[in-house]
């Protein structure tokens, strides 16, 4: 049993339902291998630091997974590789999945708060 952080980047020119579709696909595969989705984070549409397949933006999703065998990871990565909507993915083995929102979401919340305050006089 191990924990993984599995992040996917979905191309920006697809309907927003695709983001959920990919998330369900991940969840299904995890379920098939008797794993657990510990948490899912939607980072939303982010600007990429460099263009990937001519895309400058992408929908990020972070999945915190608990999996029992490496075969699950292999199958997950294989499925992402075949998917046309997923332009990039990354699997990282971690000690534990933190309950708190990740640094990206925190930064996003900070930015939104600053925007809500309006331009500083």
């Amino acid at each position, binding site marked *: 049993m191990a924990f993984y952080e599995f992040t996917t980047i979905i191309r920006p020119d697809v309907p927003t339902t695709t983001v959920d579709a990919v998330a369900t696909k991940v969840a299904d595969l995890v379920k098939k291998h008797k794993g657990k989705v510990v948490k899912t984070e939607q980072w939303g549409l982010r600007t990429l*630091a*460099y263009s990937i397949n001519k895309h400058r933006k992408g929908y990020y999703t972070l999945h915190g997974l608990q999996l029992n065998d490496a075969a699950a990871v292999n199958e997950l990565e294989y499925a992402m590789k075949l998917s046309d909507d997923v332009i990039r993915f990354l699997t990282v083995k971690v000690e534990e999945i933190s309950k708190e929102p990740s*640094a990206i979401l925190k930064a996003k919340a900070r930015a939104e708060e600053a925007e809500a305050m309006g331009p500083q006089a």
Partner: protein
Amino acid sequence: MAMEPLPARRPAPGGKGAKGKGKFSKGPRKEGAEGGFKKDAKYTPRLLGKAYFQRRRGCPFSGPKAQKIDYKDVRTLSKYLSDLGKIMPRHLSGVCAAKQRELATAIARARMLALLPFVVKADPAAEREQRNERIAARAARFAERDAQRSRATESAE
């Protein structure tokens, strides 16, 4: 009479010595200070000044309350990148060897996810502007010097 032999022993007293050697300049040497280092009140605090207390801080990722290195924490990671997006060497950032390796891995992961850039291209427009500014500043300096010279010749005549 006591001042007379001084220039002979210390050549060019008005030159290098007067300009000072930065923050370690001792100023003109006193009579009693000859024969090497003398702990006088003026000297010690200067020696113990900035250079002494600005010892580098320890590794920002080590210690009991240290921050965790996380590939998702773009804000922290970008502190350890140069302007061109390269990883900062450890002797500049003070990160310890083990944590530097961790940091490098985290940056590699962040780059994989396009959270951080592999390279940052220098902005050509900004560069051009900077160069123009430099040229303008130099032109202004030359103009001022010319004006001063012409004034000097006028006054001589």
